[in-house]
């Protein structure tokens, strides 16, 4: 058996061709796990650029929370300052990047600013847009992931559009090409620009998927089933890439999430001895 985070990380990994430049944003350990899984299986020649540390990396290390900088700083091929990365490096290379939308609509527009209420008095203020409105107007390698599939995320109408999707009347960019959640994988139909089911994860049903999605998505029957992670993929995720289970943080919330964080920090402080020595 495997967990939701593991099939998401595996699906992310399968989207990464060898030899590509992949970008890793803030607080997205599931994406890091997916990239590293690709790196250790079919894509040994990946290069990473990371928001944390602002380096170009070819090497890798297991995921951390308190010590995550070690991965990106100490093993960097070169350091790039944020301004150069944003203005020159990312526009030039169109790196593959996975974004986690706060809300996403049927054509792949998405929102990371606020949910509910008004902009001035939101029900929930989100952390903010980062580089999303910068890259999505022209990016060619935009991918989305949603760790907890639900109608609060997949909505008919966004409260705010910070990431550009496939609405053919408004979009200047190319839009996201792929979305993975804990229930299924999607791409976007070329004509309509609407979300289109690729496959449902093992054990999930089309009816449940439709019920948990706030808009109508396209699909063809018979519906395909997502490949389960292989035993080797699971071993790599659990033993090599992320032995502390940091990737799980994105699928947990509230008390369970805080408890998991405490467990991770306890395990990591053993690792910290090495951090201090190096």
């Amino acid at each position, binding site marked *: 058996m495997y967990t939701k985070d593991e099939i998401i990380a595996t699906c992310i990994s399968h989207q990464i061709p060898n030899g590509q430049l992949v970008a890793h944003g803030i607080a997205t350990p599931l994406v890091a796990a997916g990239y590293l899984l690709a790196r250790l299986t079919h894509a040994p020649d990946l290069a990473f650029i990371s928001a944390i540390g*602002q380096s170009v990396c070819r090497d890798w290390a297991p995921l951390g929370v*308190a010590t995550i900088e070690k991965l990106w700083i100490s093993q960097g091929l070169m350091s790039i300052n*944020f301004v150069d990365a944003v203005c020159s490096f990312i526009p030039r290379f169109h790196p593959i990047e996975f974004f986690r939308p706060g809300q996403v609509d049927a054509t792949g527009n998405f929102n990371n600013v606020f949910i509910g209420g008004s902009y*001035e008095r939101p029900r929930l203020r989100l952390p903010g847009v980062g580089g999303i409105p910068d890259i999505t*107007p022209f990016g060619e390698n935009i991918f989305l992931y949603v760790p907890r599939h639900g109608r609060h995320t997949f909505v008919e109408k966004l409260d705010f559009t910070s990431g550009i999707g496939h609405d053919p009347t408004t979009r200047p960019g190319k839009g996201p090409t792929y979305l993975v959640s804990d229930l299924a994988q999607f791409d976007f139909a070329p004509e309509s620009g609407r979300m289109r089911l690729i496959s449902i994860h093992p054990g999930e049903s089309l009816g449940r998927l439709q019920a948990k999605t706030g808009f109508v998505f396209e699909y063809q029957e018979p519906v395909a089933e997502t490949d389960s992670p292989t035993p080797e993929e699971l071993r790599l995720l659990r033993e090599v890439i992320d032995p502390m289970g940091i990737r799980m943080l994105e699928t947990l919330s509230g008390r369970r999430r805080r408890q998991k964080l405490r467990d991770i920090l306890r395990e990591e402080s053993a690792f910290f001895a090495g951090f201090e020595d190096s």
Partner: protein
Amino acid sequence: MIDKTLSLSDAVRYVRDGHTIALGGMTIYRRPVAFVQALITTENPPSKLTLFSFTAGLASDILVGAGMVERIRTCYFGLESFGLAPMFTNAASDGKIEIIEESEASIANGLRAKMAGVGFMPSRAWQGTDMFSVRPDVRIIEDPYNGRDLTAFPAIGCDVAVIHVLKADKFGNCQLGGNPTIDHELTLVADTVIITAEEVVDSLETSIDFSGLPVSAVVHLPQGAWPTSCYPTYPIDGDEILRYIDACNKGEFDAYIRRLSQ
């Protein structure tokens, strides 16, 4: 060059009512937390600050919690894997703080415009998004070479920038230990630059990350980023960040800060 070393209590006096204050580092890495604490607990703490942070995190959340921030300019405000920034998230939902909605490109281009001494820098960013609806001050211009619409991001400066560094010399030359973020640029757009440093040496001779030329004050402040990290000297103190979040969630921000400052 001039010896710029200064005590923490003298350095906080640079920050005045209504100032725009920029904080170096990123989210929960190398943030000037000890400086912010000192600023909160000084005798007449400044009010109505505008906070400028590329990615705002713990130090910014504390400043917001203390009620000193009227306005925040950032593209991300959160505590990374530790979740939402509690005091910011509450203040924003209550409509008690003005947010100047930025993105990575609007900040990066705004800094470049300020450094170059021009009003704006052009970019393909934001086209087609709702960002303009919350930033009516950001103009769209026509590219004179191809007629395309471009976003003209306005210049961004600040009154005071506070940057915590791994090592500084007394002239203000600094080494960061990686994670350069926008700290070099902050030193070039701020009217006053304050450095807090894990270690202060007489003179750094090579491999600095930015020059001390625009620096006004150098404060020796070991553990000055705690509980955020100062790579490679110490990692994030995650337990302390969780204690902070728990205290905020229970409405005990003030008590937490008092305890921290004892």
